[in-house]
């Protein structure tokens, strides 16, 4: 807000100190957010490369570039790296870290040291996963299903499991930090019902992180123990039950899908309101739907076990519960569309990503209902239909949300504008590339193509070639985005404090923000998204 005229450069969190040490020992949540951004981008590049190699292999029906063993390692590390080291931390650890204290008017998160520590253990986990890749890879699939992972796999399972275990603690500490920050660090006047929906979504995400992650940690620990000591906790030959592993694994890993999508939904709520210049339709509904998704998300994990030997009764219960998740998800979609209605919509690039998100998430969500119904799931289980469904959520949803948020807050974070025309181009190319990659996979799955195979019958080649073509377009889209964003850091136009005319405390401080976020502690006097002219009370 205060731009001291005449002075050359204002002190901000970026130019406060340029030394490497000042970054590696920083306690500033904004800098830690940047550290996360850099780390997850490296993992995104590694995981993305593996995805590209998978699509390359699938160009032809025979397995001709890689052996089946190599292919197994490719899709496993593709999953492990992109899920544990990109998607789960992507929005929360980067944007959440950067924005939550700004949005609630705090100087920092509640526990800055813990925040830095969690980045270090995240990086440590990532290095171990990368080490596992270097020493030969893993071939269990990212789900580490027993007894294959515990008793038979000859690859670096123990190291990979340890990597996921360690990264899990980073996630737990981030969640804990957010929960305490949101409860105890809000500025005067920032009541719960004035919080930006981004913050509500992150509260719900943190609840999942804190409640779910410990369970998967102990489960993976048992798998490691089983491999090291040769005991049979999940080995049917020794009286163990491999399905127990699946229960415990999905107790976390299904809610983990909502760790990936809820923060993206939070981003979308900010973008939709800002670019339609309207108050969100039904604030309370959108806020509580985040909490509802987090809670119901814990009741549905058994739908991953429909064909695993779970009891029929349990499958029916889980199928029913799964349909319930559709309600809060649909509430969000309806409320976003209702916000667009009669809004003064501007199609800036973050908004294009947001609209793309709504379309792709709707497709991903609706196909999820097919899979939730018990009878329908039996033929579709473990086919490309499932692959396409969850990529629509996790790539179409989470990555669109990530890119939308990245573009929206990019001026605030870097102090520079990116070239708007390129932003629009990127949104378009990513949207087209994504759909071309994954729409054919729905058909492939319907025809019966199982996941995780390097070869397939010749009649499916056309669809696979389409999908691979889409993947290359998607790659180009990501590369364009990376290029102009990096360019803009050095050569972009200087950004004003509030380039989008957005509401929210983060836009009221300087760009980039000063180390302590605000000159004076802000006092909040109005509701979130008070965009319309008839809403009185200036900030």
């Amino acid at each position, binding site marked *: 807000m205060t731009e001291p005229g005449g002075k050359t450069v204002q002190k901000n969190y970026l130019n406060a100190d340029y030394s490497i040490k000042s970054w590696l020992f920083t306690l500033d949540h904004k800098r830690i957010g940047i550290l996360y951004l850099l780390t997850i981008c490296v993992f995104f590049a590694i995981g993305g490369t593996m995805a590209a190699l998978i699509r390359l292999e699938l160009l032809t029906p025979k397995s001709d570039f890689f052996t089946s063993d190599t292919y197994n390692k490719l899709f496993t590390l593709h999953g492990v790296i992109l899920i544990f080291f990109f998607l789960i931390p992507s929005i929360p650890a980067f944007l959440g870290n950067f924005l939550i204290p700004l949005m609630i008017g705090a100087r920092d998160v509640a526990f800055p040291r813990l925040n830095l520590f969690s980045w270090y253990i995240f990086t440590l986990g990532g290095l171990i996963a990368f080490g596992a890749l270097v020493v030969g890879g893993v071939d269990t699939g990212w789900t580490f299903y027993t007894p294959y992972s515990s008793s038979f796999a000859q690859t670096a399972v123990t190291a990979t499991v340890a990597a996921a275990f360690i990264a899990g603690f980073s996630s737990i500490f981030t969640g804990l930090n957010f929960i305490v920050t949101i409860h105890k660090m809000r500025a005067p006047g920032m009541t719960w019902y004035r919080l930006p929906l981004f913050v509500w979504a992150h509260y719900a995400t943190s*609840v999942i992180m804190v*409640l779910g992650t410990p369970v998967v940690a102990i489960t993976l620990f048992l798998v490691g123990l089983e491999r090291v000591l040769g005991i049979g906790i999940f080995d049917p030959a020794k009286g163990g039950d491999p399905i127990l592993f699946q229960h415990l694994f999905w107790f976390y890993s299904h809610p983990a899908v909502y760790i990936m999508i809820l923060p993206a939904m939070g981003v979308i709520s900010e973008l939709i309101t800002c670019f339609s210049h309207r108050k969100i339709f039904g604030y309370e509904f959108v806020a509580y739907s985040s909490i509802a998704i987090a809670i119901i998300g814990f009741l549905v994990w*058994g739908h991953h076990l429909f064909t695993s030997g779970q009891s029929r009764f*349990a499958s029916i219960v889980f199928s029913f519960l799964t349909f319930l998740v559709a309600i809060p998800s649909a509430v969000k979609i309806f409320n976003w569309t209702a916000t667009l209605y009669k809004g003064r919509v501007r199609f800036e690039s973050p908004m294009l990503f947001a609209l793309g998100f709504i379309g792709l998430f709707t497709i991903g969500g609706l196909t999820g209902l097919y899979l939730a119904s018990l009878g329908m799931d039996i033929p579709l289980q473990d086919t490309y239909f499932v692959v396409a469904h969850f990529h629509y959520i996790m790539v179409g949803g989470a990555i669109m949300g990530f890119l939308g948020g990245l573009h929206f807050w990019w001026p605030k974070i870097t102090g520079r504008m990116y070239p708007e025309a390129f932003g629009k181009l990127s949104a378009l190319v990513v949207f087209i590339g994504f759909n071309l990659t994954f729409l054919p996979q729905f058909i492939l799955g319907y025809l019966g193509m199982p996941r995780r195979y390097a070869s397939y019958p010749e009649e499916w080649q056309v669809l696979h070639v389409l999908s691979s073509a889409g993947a290359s377009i998607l790659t180009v889209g990501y590369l364009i985005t990376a290029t102009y964003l990096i360019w803009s850091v050095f050569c972009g136009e200087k950004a004003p404090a509030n380039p989008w005319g957005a509401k929210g405390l983060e836009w009221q401080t300087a760009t980039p923000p000063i180390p302590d976020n605000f000159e004076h502690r802000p006092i909040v006097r109005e509701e979130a998204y008070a965009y319309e002219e008839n809403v009185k009370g200036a900030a």
Partner: protein
Amino acid sequence: MQMHIVPVRVYFIVYVLLMILLFVTYWVATMHLGRWNTVVAMLVAMVKTSLVALFFMHLYYSGRLTHVWAAVGFLFLVIMFGLTMNDYITREPSAPGLSVPE
């Protein structure tokens, strides 16, 4: 709520109760009550936990937020156990798991 610093007497009474309950569990376990053994043991454990949480951990004197989070931990544990056992106790005899030969 005036007594923010809990008197030693309260701690001592809680401690004595805990020790008595320990003997109760031990004594009940020496009797053959079938599945009621487990029920009684778990009930006693829950009473002991409540005593520790309410007084030693000051839950009795804390705000709503602490109450909510303490309840959340318990609730999600119940969800995990409940929905997992929902599978195991309804397994068909032919299904894997229960039918592991003795």
